[in-house]
């Protein structure tokens, strides 16, 4: 009996030690994205802020993140897009270059996958819980490697939400709107938010771009005073401006899309911009496997990154000729002085397979099997590539979008460009 008790005690002690060790190791090793795996969105840290700086060639920039305190005091916080990170603007795919400075964006970020190679400052893992004076908590999260960056209408459409306008108050074509962001249909009532607008706010109705003055002239809004808007469902573009009267954080409405047609037209324009961009810069992806043959031949399995327009993926067909080039984590081509096609591996797409089940954000769920007779350095499992079906235009890309002379600073941009405040 005593022996049994002793065994139980030892087992309990062992189990306890195991729990302690696993907790400690969980604390010591916080989650970081791993090479070759798309990290689950559910594990990302979510925050939002105003875009204040863009280095689009290196897929990085800065956001002024909304925290608990005085918003204006929050220093721009550097972020980098993960290679498979998705950017959306006006309900469509976008590059960082497409987003106007000042746009308020929703971000989902992770700790740097490899801090040694981070192109933005590496911060203590618990930084998002630290209080920064009057700025409050949450303004400088260490989760600065983003898998998703989207503006307000993109965020709302992904989450099935709209802004329901409660009341407008205006004078001299400027004023405030009280609104709630909540599910389009059903759901619980959300908190009311007060946002400002002014004469520069663009109002989109069908294919019309209206001024606040037009709504007043049409008798839809009063010239001055208040009007109840009875839960009018719209989508909003949101920016930030300094606010008088010691208001810590109040966002500003840059755009109002009054109907679906107006939003769809904006999305169409951005989609076409991005499609032309990807066709000239090639579809990004990563290498899952390489089977080497003789005399430089190889069969490569690659997963195409996600978030693009369907028509681009449709161009990857069995039997199609294509080219594949190595790229860096910032998706810069490793060669390009004579166009990326000059050094890229040529070959044929042998097979296109689609992953069944849930596709993680960042992935398209599409794998291509590509056979080349001359594989170049850089096309190795875990590395990033760009692929071009041969009917996409063969163009020269601008100087800042490819590497030259194998300069380590170009391959691994330093965080030194970000000012310290």
């Amino acid at each position: 009996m005593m022996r049994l008790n002793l065994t139980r005690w030892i087992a309990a002690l062992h189990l306890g030690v195991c729990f302690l060790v696993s907790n400690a190791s969980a604390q010591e090793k916080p989650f970081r994205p791993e090479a070759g795996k798309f990290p689950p969105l559910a594990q990302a840290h979510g925050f939002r802020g105003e875009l204040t700086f863009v280095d689009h060639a290196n897929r990085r920039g800065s956001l002024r993140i909304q925290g608990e305190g005085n918003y204006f005091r929050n220093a721009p916080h550097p972020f980098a897009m993960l290679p498979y990170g998705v950017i959306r603007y006006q309900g469509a795919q976008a590059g960082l270059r497409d987003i106007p400075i000042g746009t308020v964006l929703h971000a989902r970020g992770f700790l740097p996958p490899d801090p040694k190679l981070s192109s933005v400052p590496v911060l203590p893992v618990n930084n998002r819980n630290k209080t920064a004076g009057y700025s409050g908590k949450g303004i400088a999260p260490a989760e600065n490697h983003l898998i998703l960056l989207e503006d307000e209408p993109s965020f709302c459409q992904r989450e099935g939400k709209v802004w329901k306008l409660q009341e407008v108050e205006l004078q001299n074509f400027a004023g405030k709107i009280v609104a709630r962001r909540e599910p389009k249909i059903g759901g619980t009532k959300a908190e009311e938010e007060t946002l400002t607008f002014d004469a520069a706010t663009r109002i989109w109705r069908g294919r019309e771009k209206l001024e606040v003055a037009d709504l007043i002239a049409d008798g839809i809004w009063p010239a001055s005073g208040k009007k109840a808007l009875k839960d009018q469902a719209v989508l909003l573009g949101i920016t930030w401006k300094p606010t008088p009267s010691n208001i810590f954080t109040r966002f500003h409405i840059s755009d109002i899309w009054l109907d679906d047609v107006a939003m769809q037209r904006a999305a169409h324009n951005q989609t076409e911009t991005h499609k032309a961009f990807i066709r000239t810069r090639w579809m990004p992806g990563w290498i899952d496997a390489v089977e080497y043959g003789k005399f430089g031949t190889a069969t490569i399995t690659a997963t195409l990154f996600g978030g693009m327009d369907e028509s681009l993926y449709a161009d990857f067909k069995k039997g199609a000729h294509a080219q594949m080039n190595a790229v860096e984590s910032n998706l810069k081509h490793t060669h390009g002085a004579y166009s990326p096609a000059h050094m890229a591996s040529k070959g044929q797409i042998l097979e296109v397979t689609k992953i069944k089940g849930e596709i993680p954000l960042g992935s398209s769920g599409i794998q291509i099997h590509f056979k080349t007779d001359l594989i170049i350095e850089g096309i190795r499992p875990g590395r990033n590539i760009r692929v071009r079906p041969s009917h996409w235009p063969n163009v020269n890309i601008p100087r800042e979008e490819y590497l030259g002379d194998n300069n380590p600073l170009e391959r691994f941009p330093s965080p030194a460009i970000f000012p310290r405040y």
Partner: protein
Amino acid sequence: MIRIQFVIGCAVLCLGAVLLTVPVSAEEKPFRPVAGQFPPLEKAHAYRGELVFVDHANRRGSLRVEGSGKFYRNDPHPFAMLPYGIVRYHDAPVDLRDVPLGTVLHAHGFLPPNPKISAVPVLPTNNKDKDAGHYRGTGIFPAENHVLLLEDEPSHCRRKGLIWKLMEVEIKGNEGSILARREPQKKNEKKYEPENMTFDAATRIWRGRESIRISDLINEKIWPANGKKDLSDQTVLLGITWKPAPGDGLSGTFTRFHISDIWLDDKSIEHAAYFQTEKHNAFIRSRWMPGRVEEVTYGKFGRATVTATLFGGMDSTLYDDFKKDVGGQINGAENTLKHTAGHYGPGHMASSGKIIRVKKTRGEIPMGSSGIHVHFETDLVIEAIRPGRIVRIRPDSWPKMQIPREEYLFQNSPEARFPTPDIFPKY
């Protein structure tokens, strides 16, 4: 007689020496803007390029400058706005942050006024004439990188009285090319070279207050779905960007610009200018009107009367707010127009007082200046409000607000006052 000849000989020698010295010293001392003066626009070097990088907080960025070679190979070329430099977009005053990356801009630049504190790389003064090699040609990295005027295509056309005349469109699948000439609105006998530019399904077309696209023009039978159509010199304004054009690096089109926007009528460009003007008016009201101190007359116990020239290029409604006897504030600012203090709002440390006189310059007003001089009396003049220095002024009717962290200095960091060119990558 010998003495006279000697004197004449000396005079001729002296004149020759002077004549020789003038070109040498002109070569040694090329024109640079001088503190306290607005440099004449005609002395600026003009070029155009694609906006590829913006550091709006320091009023600088990079342009891919059009030269004589292959455009795509041209490294982004850093530029800094002069404190009184004007940026225009959609025919309205703007801040650099308002200009989308990719926009092709016309620039008028000077050599750095003071190379020691240049926020962008200082280059040999004859750099604009050098062949950059690697098929890039000449003119792609001028030393005249301190810009007095930066304007997009429609702003450039409206300022110069120019218009684009569309000659022919060739289209297939919502994309194609347009042949057009940029020429003066007023007819003259001169022949202007046509330019071939691309467009695609993302090109925005503005008609009155409508935002339409290529497919709408096709549906309305204005453009064909496929093939060519003569456009008979239709007058429009164009927004211009750049996109890579097909070719293998040695062949193909070296430089072909792309049409981002077409304004079909005056109402549509005026509509665009209205939105941008309103945005900029709100911006200046919250950041204050920039200007330069001309003179300070000191009184007793910190009192002073400051004469300042307001910088130009703003909407006239902003200047109208500077009136005699109106209360206001004046704050020190840097060449980047950053406020020198702002942790509790620029109004916290600024000199408060009253505008005692507003004077307008008669005659031609140089670019950069508004021609408006404000005489401002304060009972406590702060450091930095000195002749030649940059200031920002706010009439009391403008809202008193906090400005974002990157737009003011704090703890007197020299790096924040004088940003170094280190952030610009070397290619």
